């Protein structure tokens, strides 16, 4: 019996019965209605569809469902329940780093990855960590600043 593709989605075990070739982005948005995951290009160039797969940043538009079998997938909906999110969100708020917001769920997950790798990141490490996520609104300075603030305020969390 096919019990589908089993994986953890935002902490909950789920089983996806569609095709293994379906794209994670579409499945997250349509099947699981997790619309915080945005589509900006559908070809792996913008980062709006970023999710965490086993803690690594991934463009969900470039991931086939078969690939997430037994993995842990975290979207902004799940991540926003964490304490780390709160620190990041408040840091983003403090510098008004959110403009149109379309890149932001992806940016916040990219920020998480920067801090997970470098709890005390240099500016270059931050910029490198964000370089796969396009933002057309902010010019990036505010987002960089927000990560610096989060690193400081979230001391010990990462």
């Amino acid at each position, binding site marked *: 019996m096919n019990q589908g593709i089993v994986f953890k989605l935002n902490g909950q075990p789920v089983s996806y019965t569609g095709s293994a070739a379906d794209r994670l982005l579409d499945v997250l948005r349509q099947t699981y209605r997790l*619309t915080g995951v945005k589509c900006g290009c559908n070809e792996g160039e913008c980062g709006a569809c970023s999710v965490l797969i086993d803690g690594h940043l991934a463009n969900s538009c470039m991931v086939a469902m078969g690939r997430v079998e037994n993995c842990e997938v975290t979207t902004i909906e799940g991540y*926003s329940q964490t304490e780390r999110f709160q620190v990041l969100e408040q840091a983003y708020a403090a510098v008004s780093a959110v403009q*149109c*917001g*379309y890149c932001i769920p992806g940016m916040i997950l990219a920020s998480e990855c920067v801090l997970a790798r470098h709890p005390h990141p240099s500016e270059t490490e931050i910029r490198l960590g964000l370089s796969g996520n396009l933002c*057309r609104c902010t*010019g990036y300075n*505010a987002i960089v600043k927000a990560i610096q603030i989060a690193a400081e305020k979230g001391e010990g969390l990462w």
Partner: protein
Amino acid sequence: MMPISQSVIKKDHLAKACGQAMYVADYDTTQMLQGLILRSPHAHAKILSMTYPPLPEGYFTVDYRDVPGINEVHIVKDDTPVYADATVEYIGDPIMMLVGPDERELERLLAQIEVNYELLPAIIDVRDGDTAFFDYHFGKGDMDQAWAEADQIFEECFETGYQEQAYLEPQGLIADYNQGKITVRGSMQCPYYVHGALAKALGLTPDKVRVIQDVTGGGFGGKEDYPSILACQVAVAAYKAKGQPVRVIFGRREDMEFTSKRHPSRCTYKAAVKNGRVTALDADVIFNAGAYTTLSAVVLQRGIIAASGVYDIPALKVHGAAIKTNTVPNGAYRGFGAPQTFFAVEMLMEHIANALDEEPLAFKLRHMVRQGSVTSTGGRYHFPVPLPAMVDEVRKMSDFEQKRQVYARQQTGTTRRGIGISLWFHGAGFTGSGERDIIKAVTRLHKLADGRVEILASQSDIGQGIKTTLCKIVANELNLPLDQVSYDNPDTDRVPDSGPTVASRSLMTVGELLRRAAIRLRSQWQEGVEQTVEEHFKEPDFVIPFYIDKFQGDAYPTYAWGVCAVEVAVDTLTGVNEITGTWASFDVGTPIDLNIVIGQMEGGLLQGLGYASMEQLAADQKGRIRNHSFSDYIIPTAMDVPLMKVQLHVEAYPDGPYGAKGAGELPLVGAAPAYMSALEQALAGPINHIPFSAEDALKLIRQSRRA
């Protein structure tokens, strides 16, 4: 800093940060039909016939024959058809829409539609164009005398390319026709523009049309007129679907290839110089309009009004033309025609200074307008021009003099450096009398019995923070905590027409109306009852009336000002350059929220730097735009300009709320010439076109080696 400038947490911050904000693509689609547009593969052709394949149950076609009203999209002139009828005028011209429940099936069916065309000659290169959609002339002073007396005449042609807005959220709308009323919602800057267009195309009275803006993922002008076109197309489909909503969400490629962009330009400038001073300027400004007029008239107007830049040149002759080509129609993009002419005039001033062996900045400063100077259109700079102070600020921040001198010495080695500076303005608000004669903005404040106040206006928050800043203004006047004042995404059934979200006007113009409304509400405030106050736009008394037929008068009540320095390092082996720093000072009057304004300035500046270099987009000989994805239309990432320092210089504007004036567009407008001036210093050669690529740099290096 005024207390109002103190930053707050943006009203829409949390919903966006945690992914709960609903953009148009986020609504549940189970009850919706999807639409897919069939577009012309030819730049110019007559449609001879169309054959539709047999369609499965639930699928249907929509073309010009289904348009219940007039097959024209109301923009400025109404030559854009909702769906092409007789001819197609550019690659991508929409012919029909296929509608049905399943997107893949739609794609399959769309490929089976047969259209027979008779090919017609197409004009792709603007230099071959023979139709001027708009043709304007104006000037001042005695050109003949200046020419006769000149010591030297300079002539040069400057070219700029396309620029794609590249908002991260592609265009998308949902239309629903129910009980004789059409509702369109989605991503847009100007709900009432869409409203007007729908009434005409559907042949409905205004009360039968409802437009709702959803959270919008960026606009930058790209969602000024384009949503009117898409709205008509989707609405006609919904009209035919009878009761089932129809949704169209563009993919990135469709969006990049077929929606409006910044007009490419060719500016031929001639300058007369006497005793080291520019005495006359003859500017011939050609914009490539594309296949339909859309917003070209107004874009061109703003462009040519800025033809002489921030310089006081006694004699001026300006000609501007928007030329039809069989390419995608160009429209609004942050700066609206001004980045093109500022590039031309700033580079021209650099080149004249170089030829006269004077430091360009000093040369520019000698020519600068000041308070009381006459504008290009015979209006006045009514308020202080803070450029000299801003130049000093930027000089200091960037260590300009020192670097400029060091880099001026003969450079050796593979890395060459340069630094450049540019000066500019942006006319605040609509050009000319548009605000007074056409827009006639109306706003309302609605106070609930419990004392909360709602703002009723049609401004769209597209990321610029207008939800927050408008609420701040009203809360401030009413002495209310910010959470007691709300502003929802505009819904034309609920809000009056306070005008479009364009031209850096929202905060300055609508913000001031709301400030006045709040003052009135405060004076009439009654506890425990519901109250409404309304405020109408009135032109400030000092404004010299503007006549567009003559280009005479105050084109703008006031101006925002910008100064920017850019420093580069060029690798002479690859031609690749790196921006090692950029420093800018901007005067947008009083910031209504410091963080928000700084965010606007930084974001706009980065777009301006992208415009000058990496953002390369071109139509090929057939008129097709091939680089239509983020892998070949490159916009700046977080790595590209790591050092960007922006500061504000505040010259308060008495008729803006607390002294605020237009902000959003300013930072983009003059960034390119500073960057190119820096490259000129590094490469020791002249630059007269953007985008300037690594190949261009290599060419220039070879040339200057030879010379």
